[in-house]
C-alpha cells in the first residue's frame, strides 16, 4: 500500500494533476465548439491500435510492453477513427452524432476483439493492456510524468497562443472564415490538442473515461463565470483538483481504480457548482447570468444567491423569519449582515424592491 509521502505516489499525483490541467483547458474550447463528443470517439477508437501495436511489437521480437509503441498505435488508430467520423459525415447524409456513435462502438468492439486475440497469444504477455481501458494511475513512473508535463505545457502553451483565434472559432466559425481565418486548420489544431491530452491520459484515466476529464471540468466551470478566460482557468483548476484528489485516493485506498475516482471527484465538483449556482439559475432568466446582472447593477444584496435583488432586510420581528425572496435559504441574509443594509445611507441600492431582471417580487410574509 502506498502513502502520500512516497516518491511513487507523488509522481503519480503530479502526473495526473498536470493531465487534469491540460484537459480542463482543451475541454473548455471543445465544449464551446460543440465538439465534446469527438474526443470520446477518438479515445474509444484508440483501443484496436493498442492491441495491434502490441501484436506487431511481439511479432517483431519485443516484449510488447514498450509504452511509446503502444501509444503510437493508439494515436494512429484514434486518428483513423476521427477520419472515419469526418468521412461518414461528408459522404453520407448521416448526422454527426450518428457518425460518432458508429465509429465509437465499431472501433471499441474491434479493440475488444483484438485484445481477446492478444490474450490467447500467451498469458503473461497481454497483462496490463486492460489498464488502458479503465486507467491505472499507479503505473505512472517518473519518465511518464515527465512526458505528461511536457505535453501539458505544450497544450497549454498552444491554447494560450491561439486563445483569441479559438474564441472566435468557437463563437462564430462562419464569421471567422469571412475574415480569412483558416477555420479548418484551426479546428485541426484544436483536435490535435485533444489527441495529445487523450494519449497522455490513457495510462492514468483510461480511454473510456478520459472524455469525462474533457467535458466535466469545463461544464462545471461554465456555472461560475461569463468570461471565456476565467472559464478556462477554472476548468483547468477543477481538472487538476479532480485528478489530484482522485489519483491520491486511488493510490491510498486499495482497489479503487484511478480513472473512476478521478471522474467521481470531478462529478462531485460539478454537482457543487450546479448547486452553488442553482439558486441563481432557478430564478434568473439568463441562467448563470444572475451573477453578472448583479455585478452590472452595481450591488448584490445577498452574496450566495446573487440574484441581484435589491432589497432591504426588514427590521423587527419580521427580521428573523425573513428570507431573500429569490433564494430559499436563510443563509443568504447572514452573508449580507455585514453590509449596511439597515442604515439610511444605503438608500441608493437596496431600498427598491425589485430585481434588476425586472421580475416583480411577491410581498414578504
Amino acid at each position, binding site marked *: 500500500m502506498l502513502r502520500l509521502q512516497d516518491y511513487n505516489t507523488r509522481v503519480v499525483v503530479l502526473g495526473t494533476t498536470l493531465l487534469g490541467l491540460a484537459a480542463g483547458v482543451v475541454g473548455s474550447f471543445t465544449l*464551446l465548439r*460543440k465538439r465534446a463528443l469527438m474526443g470520446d470517439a477518438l479515445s474509444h477508437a484508440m483501443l484496436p491500435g493498442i492491441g495491434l501495436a502490441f501484436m506487431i511489437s511481439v511479432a517483431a521480437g519485443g516484449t510488447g510492453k514498450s509504452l511509446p509503441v503502444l501509444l503510437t498505435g493508439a494515436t494512429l488508430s484514434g486518428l483513423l477513427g476521427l477520419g472515419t467520423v469526418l468521412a461518414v459525415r461528408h459522404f453520407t447524409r448521416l448526422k454527426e452524432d450518428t457518425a460518432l456513435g458508429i465509429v465509437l462502438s465499431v472501433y471499441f468492439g474491434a479493440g475488444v476483439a483484438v485484445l481477446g486475440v492478444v490474450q490467447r497469444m500467451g498469458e503473461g504477455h497481454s497483462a496490463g493492456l486492460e489498464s488502458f481501458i479503465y486507467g491505472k494511475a499507479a503505473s505512472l513512473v517518473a519518465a511518464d510524468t515527465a512526458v505528461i508535463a511536457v505535453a501539458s505545457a505544450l497544450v497549454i502553451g498552444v491554447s494560450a*497562443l*491561439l*486563445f*483569441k*483565434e479559438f*474564441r*472566435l472559432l*468557437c*463563437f*462564430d466559425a*462562419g*464569421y471567422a*472564415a*469571412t*475574415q*480569412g*481565418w483558416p477555420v479548418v486548420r484551426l479546428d485541426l489544431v484544436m483536435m490535435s490538442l485533444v489527441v495529445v491530452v487523450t494519449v497522455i491520459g490513457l495510462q492514468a484515466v483510461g480511454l473510456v473515461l478520459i472524455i469525462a476529464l474533457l467535458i466535466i471540468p469545463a461544464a462545471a466551470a*461554465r456555472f461560475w*463565470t*461569463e*468570461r*471565456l478566460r476565467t*472559464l478556462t482557468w477554472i476548468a483547468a483548476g477543477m481538472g487538476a483538483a479532480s485528478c489530484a484528489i482522485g489519483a491520491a485516493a486511488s493510490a491510498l485506498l486499495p482497489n479503487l481504480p484511478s480513472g473512476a475516482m478521478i471522474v467521481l471527484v470531478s462529478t462531485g465538483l460539478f454537482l457543487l457548482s450546479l448547486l452553488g449556482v442553482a439558486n441563481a439559475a432557478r430564478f434568473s432568466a*439568463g*441562467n448563470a*447570468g444572475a451573477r*453578472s*446582472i448583479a455585478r*452590472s447593477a452595481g450591488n448584490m444584496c445577498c452574496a450566495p444567491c446573487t440574484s441581484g435583488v435589491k432589497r432591504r432586510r426588514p427590521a423587527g420581528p419580521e427580521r428573523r423569519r425573513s428570507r431573500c425572496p429569490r433564494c430559499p435559504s436563510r443563509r443568504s441574509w447572514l452573508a449580507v449582515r455585514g453590509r449596511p443594509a439597515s442604515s439610511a445611507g444605503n438608500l441608493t441600492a437596496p431600498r427598491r424592491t425589485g430585481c434588476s431582471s425586472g421580475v416583480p417580487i411577491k410581498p414578504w410574509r
Partner: protein
Amino acid sequence: MLTLSPPPPAATPTRRPVLAPLGAEHSPEAALSIHDMTVAYHRKPVLWDVDLDVPPGSLVGIVGPNGAGKSTLIKAVLDLIPRVSGRVLVFGKPYRQQRHRVAYVPQRESVDWDFPVSALEVVAMGLYGRIGWFRPVTRRHREIALHALERVGIADLAHRQISQLSGGQQQRTFLARALVQEADLYLMDEPFAAVDAATEKAIVRLLQDLRAAGRTALVVHHDLQTVAEYFDRVVLLNLRVVASGLTETVFTRENLQKTYGGRLTLMTEAAEALARETPAP
C-alpha cells in the same frame, strides 16, 4: 429580367449580352459584381444564374420569399458556400483579395448566444483580422470596440454577457462588430428581423451614415412596406434574380408578383405598400 433558359453548365468567361435591367451595366468600379453565379447545396442548385452589379455608395435591399436564397447569395459572395459556376468581384478583384474591405453581419440565429463573452468582446472580434495571429486584444482595441458600441447606442451594455442582451441589442452588437472593420462593403443578413421600432430606426440611421460616407450595403430585408423608404436599389430574388435596379423602377407590382408568386397574404401586403408609394413621384 427573367431568364428561363437553364444556366450554362460551366462558367463561360465571355461576357454574355444581357438584357440588363435599368442602371445595371457591369462596370469595373462596381462595389460588387456577380457574373452568372449558380450555387448548389449537395448538388441541388438553389440559386441560378445570378447576375448583379452594385454601384458603390448605394443601399441595396435584397427581397424575396423564405427559401429564395437570399442568405445563400450572401454566403456565396463571402466564399462560405462553394459556387458551382460564376464569378464574384468585390471592387474589381476577387473576394479573397478584398476581405478587409467587406464586413458580414450574419443572421442572428447563426450563433450560440449563451457563449461566455461580453458584448464588447464580440465587437472586438471585428478587429481580430487587423490584430493578427497570436497577438492579444489590447486596451486600444477595446476602446475602438466601445466606440462602435456607442455608435449603435448600447455602450452601457458593453460588459454584459451576450445572453443577457435583448434580440435588438444582440443585433446591434453584430452591427458594431461589422462597424469596427471599417469596411467599404457591408453584407447584412436580416438585420431588421425581430427588432423594435427604435432599433430599426437606429439601424436605418446607421445605414444612411454609411452611405453618406461612401460605403455600400447589401441588406436582406423582409418588410416590403419599408423597402422603398430605406433602399436606393432592390434585388428581387427567388432562386434567380427576378429584377434588380433602382427601387423606383424595379420595385413594381408586376415584379413583386413574379417574385412572390401566388402567396396571397404577401401580395396584399405588397399591394398596400405600393398603394402607399404610388402617389409619390
